[in-house]
């Protein structure tokens, strides 16, 4: 990783007007003018600026083979990726996470690693991340609600991180947990789900080259509403599998319980691989709306990552193991 030496005379990054704000100044003026008229006051707080000033560039990022070119699609713009989120810990509305995660301070952060593993313990964020080189990975992201994005994540291959923990042969699954802290996570004051949020993968899924531990997006640290400071990304599964703000990683012998499966076992299975053939009681999964587009497009088996992942599910009845 590059170490950047700073001189006292250097412009601090916090002093530089973020590009988005600069580009957005016209809209800001428009918004401000309307606010001045008292038009729909309150509802037009310019949400797009909530992030500004906190955005931190990550340095020393290496490219990976998962580039925008390899996906072959336009990136979903930063605004949409960071203002349209399902993160029920901060409220159930799509814009709630942006609003209510604003003051969430993810640092210092630590992650407990336990279970069937050679090197258990409490790892600080720095312990987890610093030994690795950060990678850029552009992945499709498909929500179970039939919308999707293309996101340039920054992070670490999950297998690389796990190799340092040394999972034992008995470790057949891995369980993840999100922070449970209603004082800091407003949405947890209501029992929409049984907190803490839990997710899990089969060991071979976790070690698949696609599985990714993200610490950033668009070359910057993860915004709070996207699961700061560290989250999972499994692009061939529905978005809810990509658990956010992880505080615990447990290696287990048996299949761990997962939040949405506990809440609605008929609707959400343990695997939750993107599967347009398997219709969901609430949403047909045959199509999806890419954020920013008008017409829906057909959804792809394994969200288009069949080449990398299909072999893990050979011989499994996907109607039963959904």
């Amino acid at each position: 990783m590059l170490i950047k030496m700073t001189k006292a005379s250097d412009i601090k990054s916090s002093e530089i007007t973020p590009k988005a704000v600069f580009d957005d100044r016209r809209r800001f003026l428009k918004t401000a003018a309307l606010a001045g008229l008292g038009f729909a006051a309150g509802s037009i707080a310019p949400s797009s600026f909530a992030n500004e000033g906190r955005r931190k560039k990550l340095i020393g990022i290496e490219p990976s083979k998962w580039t925008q070119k390899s996906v072959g699609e336009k990136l979903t713009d930063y605004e949409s990726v960071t203002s349209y989120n399902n993160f029920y810990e901060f409220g159930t509305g799509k814009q709630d996470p942006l609003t209510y995660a604003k003051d969430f301070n993810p640092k210092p952060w630590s992650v407990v690693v336990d279970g069937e593993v050679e090197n258990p313990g409490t790892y600080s964020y720095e312990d987890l991340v610093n030994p690795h080189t950060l990678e850029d990975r552009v992945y499709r992201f498909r929500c179970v609600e039939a919308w999707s994005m293309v996101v340039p994540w920054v992070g670490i291959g999950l297998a690389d991180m796990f190799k340092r923990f040394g999972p034992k042969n008995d470790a057949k699954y891995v369980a993840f947990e999100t922070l449970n802290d209603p004082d800091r996570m407003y949405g947890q004051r209501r029992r929409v789900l049984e907190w803490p949020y839990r997710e899990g993968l089969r060991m071979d899924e976790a070690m698949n080259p696609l599985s990714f531990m993200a610490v950033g997006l668009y070359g910057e640290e993860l915004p709070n509403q996207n699961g700061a400071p560290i989250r999972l990304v499994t692009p061939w599964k529905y978005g809810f599998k990509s658990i956010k703000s992880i505080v615990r990683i447990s290696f287990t012998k048996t299949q761990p319980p997962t939040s949405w499966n506990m809440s609605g076992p008929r609707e959400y299975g343990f695997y939750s691989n993107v599967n347009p053939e398997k219709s969901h009681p609430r949403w047909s999964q045959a199509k999806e709306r890419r954020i920013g587009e008008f017409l829906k497009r057909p959804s792809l088996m394994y969200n288009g990552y069949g080449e990398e992942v299909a072999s893990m599910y050979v011989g499994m009845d996907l109607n039963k193991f959904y």
Partner: protein
Amino acid sequence: MTQDKLIQRVLKPLVWMLCLAPLLGLAGLAYTDGMTANPIEFLNRYLGEWALKFLLSALMITPLKIVTGWAGFTRFRRLLGLFAFFYAVLHLLSYVGLDQFFNWKDIWTDLIKRTYITVGLGAFIILAVLAATSTKNTIKKLGGKNWNRLHKWVYVAGFGGCLHFFMMRKGVQAEPLFYAGFLALLLIYRWLYYLKKQRQRAGKTAPAAL
């Protein structure tokens, strides 16, 4: 100004404007990019929620009349009910025309496979029938008693609307429960009032039986 004129010339136009305010609000949100990154979904949910709000407001009229003793409230019931139907029409149109883009095959699959959509359409059909029979002429044609009986279906529509909303959301979310709780409160109030009336009637007839 007489009460009738006050209602006709001041209150009715005022309520009309209030009923159209959500559309103005929508225009404001559209102008300020306030419709989220998924405006089609946002529009659909926004219109649906307003349909439900107006439906519950129409159901609030009788309790309000009883509590305040002002009979003038009933003059606004049809207006609110028709606005509930108006927003329900827009809500449905946004689903058919924007979300599904007139893909009738997919719409049909949704209708038979996704229970919350079946329930929603049921509530919509009830509202359509009630809206179609809301004129003074139909009241005359059907007779007050029959018309009243038909329009009791509004409770079923209210229940259907709340259920539709609850089933659409993932997990146990607060907003749909709030709407359902409000509907329950209105119904409990009416029921208690009905019991009280019954007791009063029984009290009056009891001495005669002696």
